[in-house]
């Protein structure tokens, strides 16, 4: 009993050291105005940890959330959130066709990719996402956006979930990024 508990503690404590981290790299993140609307386009690279990649190739579907917030800075008070978006994807590996299926959960759209890199890039990058009308931006105030890409641990199968709470292999480093909206 004591031996098992000791093993459990050591196993959990050593979890961060066992696997390489998942990394998010924001190559570009641009907001622009077209027709009095603010749009966002991003070029983001995503690399999964070895453990997450193994899980994916073993048939475990991974869900990712892209959270985007547009906020206005308020002096001496918490900032005001103007818009909040969440885009969720499910990424799965199709053994039969040796392809990666990317499904956008809000719309149900599916796309297949022959390699993981393209699938992750397609999932992480945004193109022409309308954030808000320009009229909602107040002059003289600082507005900024925040984007966070994360792996949804709660969507993992239960046995992995418990382990994922304690392991960095299931976390994405550098997943959060802020930019200023001018």
């Amino acid at each position, binding site marked *: 009993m004591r031996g098992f508990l000791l093993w459990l503690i050591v196993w959990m404590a050593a979890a961060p050291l066992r696997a390489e981290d998942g990394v998010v790299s924001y190559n570009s993140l641009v907001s622009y105005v077209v027709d009095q609307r603010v749009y966002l386009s991003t070029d983001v690279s995503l690399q999964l940890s070895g453990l997450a990649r193994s899980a994916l190739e073993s048939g475990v579907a991974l869900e990712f959330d892209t959270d985007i917030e547009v906020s206005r800075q308020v002096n001496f008070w918490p900032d005001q959130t103007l818009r909040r978006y969440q885009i969720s994807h499910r990424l799965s590996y199709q053994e*039969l066709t040796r392809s990666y299926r990317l499904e956008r959960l809000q719309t149900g759209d599916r796309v297949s990719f*022959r390699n993981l890199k393209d699938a992750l890039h397609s999932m992480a990058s945004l193109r022409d996402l309308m954030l808000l009308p320009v009229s909602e931006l107040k002059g003289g105030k600082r507005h900024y956006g925040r984007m966070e890409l994360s792996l949804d641990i709660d969507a993992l199968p239960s046995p992995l979930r418990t382990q994922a709470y304690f392991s960095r292999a299931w976390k994405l480093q550098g997943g959060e990024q802020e930019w200023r909206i001018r």
Partner: protein
Amino acid sequence: MAYSVMDNKTSSGALGVVLMLVVFVSLLSSLYFLGNSAESLERFGRANDLLLVINGLMSVIIFVLVAMNAVRLVRELRQGLAGSRLTLRLVLMLVLMSLLPAIIVYTFSVRFLRSGIDSWFNVQIEQSLDNALDISRASLAEEQREFMRSSEKIRLTLRTLEDASLVPAMSDVLSAYGAREIILRDRQGLVIASASLNLYLPNMRVDQELSERVLDGQSWVSVIERQDGNLDVQVGLAFNDGVVERNGQILEVIYPMDARRQELGQDVQDTFQHYQQLTFMREPLKTSFVFTLSLVLALSALAAVWIAFRLARLLMRPVQTLAAGTRAVAEGDLSQRLPPGGKDEFGYLLNSFNQMVRQLQSARDRASISQGEVEQQRAYLQAVVGSISTGVMTLDQSGRPRTINSAAIDMLGVDRVDVIGISLEDARDKTGAYAALAEAVAPHLDADASVWQEELHLNGARGRRTFVCRGSRLGEVGTGHVLVFDDISPIIRAQRDAAWSEVARRLAHEIKNPLTPIQLSAERIRHRYMDKLGEDGELMDRATRTIVQQVESMKSMVNAFAEYANTPDLAFAEIDLSDLVADVVELYRGLPSGGRIGLNLADNLPLVRADSGRFRQLLHNLLKNALEAKENEEEANIDVSLQLSVIDNESCLKLQVRDYGPGFPVDTLDRVFEPYVTSKSRGTGLGLAIVKQVVEEHEGEIELSNPADGGACVTLYLQHMAS
């Protein structure tokens, strides 16, 4: 008080039972879910979170309860509360009893779980799934090859056609070869012409990889997934051998995959991936199962500890109640009643305790009443003993006085504190009546006689007195003695006085009568024969004169005795004693042998009811005695005082006559009031006897003493009129 505590404990006990039921149900549910979920990954996934939350929550609650109980027990142990050590032992025993089997079951459960999960995996199954997947892939590849051949035929059909004829031809071959879509693209991938079974426009840009590979001379075949989830086969071919206009153009043909083949392939893929997923999660699954089971064990252990605390307290409650009751009874609180117990042995014990306390209380009440009665009797006896004129002393077995009544204290002239607890042996070394009594009594205490009596003559500050002392042992041998003594000096004195009065009366009667004829006869003889005798007449004259003188003297003596023996009729009147004393003293001051007589009379003294004649005689006797007491001095030295005094809380007049002569002989001090008792060569010895007689006639008291600085002192205490 005990009942209210029980009420509180009952309510908390009900809460504890409810909590215990919740824990029990939670444990059973957890084990049920764990048992069921072990059959499949999906079930485990659904139940695991619930199990973790419920067991975690219950563990925290039970842990807090256990901690509270442990802290309480430690506090009770430090305070040394009754039953706390037994509670600790019970808790440890119960915990040990419950944990040992739980740990054994847990160990085997973990082993079974791990082996159970391992049994899900099998090399043959894995190989079979691999083979099935390979077959599916081969089937898919075969279909792709067929589509490739069809696409080649389409390419050959289209390669020589003019642009205008392309679209109708493409529509024809579309249905002929079962294609879904045919697209002709230029080098940049832009659509030149297309034919499709649906109304949607084709993708305007071709896949770049497809374009590059096809233009490099390679054929392209790929499976793509449609929005509806079905699979298509995409084939790409280049026109390199046709008309010049077609060179470099790309033919893209999309075929729908065979539905049945697709369905079977999808099933194989799902099964394979499910198995792969299980294989990947093999260890985490074991860990999760074991973790959940460990949590259940932890909850079970904590619940066992908590239940052990509850049970121990439940068992110890009657013991603690009994201990509290016993302590209260030991401190004298017999009103304590314990709550009635049940029908078990503890109940019997509690009921017996209550019965015992009731009996004790009843006995104490009876004892209290008896003690009150005894106290009352003792107080009554003490009052009786205290008020009697007989002296009473009790001694313990070692001869130390334990009690002494007021009469004894008065008779012996001692203080109570100088007597109680001080042995007679120590008292013998002192002086006074008490020392003399101790000296006389001590031999009797050591003697065997249980009752003894002795007449004792004790010399004290009040002179020599006679006591009749009786002693007896108290109860059994060794418990002590009681001494009873009476001062019989006044009785003896009264007897002597009565005897002397009788003697005086007889003397007066028997002697006085013949004296007159003797005197008359002597005078007649002298008168008739003195002239006739001549020279012998002178002898006659001397002899008859002597007879007459002696007869006169005898008459005086007889008169004095007669006077002492007579009881005259007293004429009482309210007189001022100061004036009387001053008058009499003044008479003696005028005498040649009067000497110095000091007179000290207090002012405004109250009147006295007295016979002035008898009192004048009293004063004469006292002053004559004092004057005659001068020894070798030329003149007498006398002090006479009259003051107001208090005796036994009553006001009285104190008349004191003091001389500075030799004082009263100590050996006759107790007898100086008797007739004929005198230390002087002359006198009848009746002076003080008459003084005493007069004092008694006036219901006064007289004391004689020899002051320490010499001389003799006579003190009279007389009642006075109310002022």
